[in-house]
């Protein structure tokens, strides 16, 4: 395996109708054998980017390089890339076997080889013995497996998946997430998945590109994305986060001095200066009845507002004297109800570690 990335997207833009910039100067690299996710809200350009990889859209400018070859203008049927469509697109008038065999037939493989590879692919997606079924005799989950087998049987260098789990019910979706990860490890093919569901991307992908308004906001592994978001959009899009507006000046040594209402002046690790947001995830916030003395934390007084009980944790909104309340996910570590219950109006000290505080530009 070479270290050369399997997909290189270089300065790619796609402009629809002369004005609508669906994808705006995107640069991306996908490594060989990686499970890569394109994540973003609807209309962020992730699907357009995927369609450019598949060949259904031609970049307005820029290059799409797959396996060292410029594919920007190559027809979809001539690319070493296969796709699992959002609707699965299982051919309704063909049996499962015929569906899976279709791509190999187009490649004019010998009949014997087609038979063997189809059987193997069906086995891989746990549909062995279903070959003679018609698509209308199968459930949505099974049809998706047919679509997967049909794409994988061609042994593409890259498999594209367009919102593959969006049409499944919650339970099946979770099972299929694990299944896709297992499948990707088994076949070793690079997977590129498009999704708007962050939990899907976080749980499956090795690396995620977060997109917004046609541009890539951050490319990072799930943990980095969650713990060290590059900007406000990523921080806000992935998970929940509290943001307190403030002003920052450089303090040298990779640190900034931030002044914010209620919190006052605090020196934190970071590089952004000027108008910034102090950001902290709700699960990193603790409560105490007495003022914490640890100098490594930021502590403010908060009055309990709304409380939502989720069993393993409670989502509590504290009024800390700012326009936006501070939300904290308090783990319900005790089974003593008295101890874990929050009542509106109660006052607590709310605190979190300085090292858990992000300074976002």
């Amino acid at each position, binding site marked *: 395996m070479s270290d050369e990335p399997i997909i290189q997207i270089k300065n790619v833009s796609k402009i629809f109708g002369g004005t609508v910039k669906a994808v705006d100067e995107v640069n991306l690299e996908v490594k060989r054998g990686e499970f890569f996710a394109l994540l973003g809200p609807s209309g962020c350009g992730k699907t357009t980017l995927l369609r450019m990889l598949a060949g259904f859209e031609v970049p307005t400018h820029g290059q799409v390089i797959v396996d060292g070859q410029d594919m920007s203008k190559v*027809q979809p049927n001539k690319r070493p890339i296969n*796709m699992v469509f959002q*609707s699965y697109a299982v051919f*309704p*008038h063909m049996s499962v076997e015929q569906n899976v065999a*279709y791509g190999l037939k187009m490649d004019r493989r010998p009949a014997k080889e087609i038979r063997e590879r189809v059987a193997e692919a069906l086995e891989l997606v746990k549909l062995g013995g279903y070959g003679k079924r*018609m*698509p*209308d005799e199968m459930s949505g989950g099974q049809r998706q497996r047919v679509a997967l087998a049909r794409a994988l049987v061609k042994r593409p260098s890259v498999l594209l998946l367009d919102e593959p789990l969006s049409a499944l019910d919650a339970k099946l979706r979770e099972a299929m997430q694990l299944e896709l990860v297992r499948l990707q490890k088994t076949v070793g093919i690079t997977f590129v998945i498009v999704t708007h569901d962050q939990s899907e991307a976080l749980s499956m992908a090795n690396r995620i590109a977060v997109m917004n308004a046609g541009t890539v906001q951050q490319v990072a592994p799930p943990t980095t994305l969650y713990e060290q978001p590059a900007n406000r959009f990523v921080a806000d899009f992935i998970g929940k986060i509290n943001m307190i507006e403030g002003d920052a000046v450089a303090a040298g040594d990779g640190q900034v001095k931030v002044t914010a209402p209620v919190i006052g002046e605090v020196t934190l690790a970071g590089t952004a200066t000027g108008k910034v947001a102090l950001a902290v995830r709700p699960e990193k916030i603790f409560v105490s009845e007495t003022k914490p003395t640890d100098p490594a934390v930021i502590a403010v007084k908060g009055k309990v507002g709304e409380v939502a009980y989720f069993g393993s944790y409670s989502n509590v909104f504290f009024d800390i004297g700012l326009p936006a309340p501070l939300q904290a996910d308090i783990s319900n570590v005790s089974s003593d109800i008295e101890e874990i219950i929050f009542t509106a109006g109660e006052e607590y000290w709310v605190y979190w570690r300085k090292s858990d505080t992000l300074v976002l530009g």
Partner: protein
Amino acid sequence: MSIFSRNPDPIGPLDYARRFWLRAIVAVTLFFLYAPIVGLIVFSFNDSRRNIVWRGFTTDYYVKLFNNEALMLAFGNSLTIALFTTLFSTVLGALTAYVLWRYRFPGKAIYEGGMALPIVIPEICMGVAMMVFFARIGWPSGMPWPLNLSAITIAHIAFSFPFAAIVIRARLESFNRELAECARDLGANEYRVFRDIVVPHMKPGLIAGALLAFTLSLDDFVITFFTSGPDTVTFPVKIYSMVRFSVTPEVNAASTVLILLTLVVTAFALRMQNRNNMIGNAAH
């Protein structure tokens, strides 16, 4: 029971079948729709030349019908024309529908409207136009069979293929374009996508379009009347000329045969379509 007691079984809000006026409308509609047809069929077995009063059952007129050489010739002509019309209309209609569905081109809306013209133009005008047109360009007449039917066939194709195109176009609206993209993705070129994926989806539309073209052509009188010559008489035109002398049970018998033929073809087409729909609808 006092007169103030409620009707023990009042007509419910959805009990349409129990409302008098609705029943009356349905009855009258069915009567005017089917009574003439039933009468026609019944009187084809009437043992009377003048065919006004019932004089007993006979199948003589069917025997006579099949021995009537001129009528059989007209029947053969009609079937031949209908067959060619069906074939060409379906293919042309399918291609037209595909182009309109698949591609965008300048003047598409105008073309789409123009294509539907034969449907809205009064048939008599189409007939006259066709007659004048074939005379003007000097379309050869007196050719050997079946070439002598070419003018009628061309006229029939011209007015029936838009019907086929509209039906097939409607069917294509329900096509999931991802199916075509998926086939492309799996290595098919445009032609294979059309052949392997689009045509199978079109099939119910193709059958419906073919059926429309067949029946339109088989029973067309007006346009045929203007484009046919003395040696190219079709079944409806022949029946018309027979009626001008007298309405004999033979005319009834001929009409009954035509009805039967249409019914058989329609039933066959519907059967095929149902089977296809069952497969097609499973896609989503």
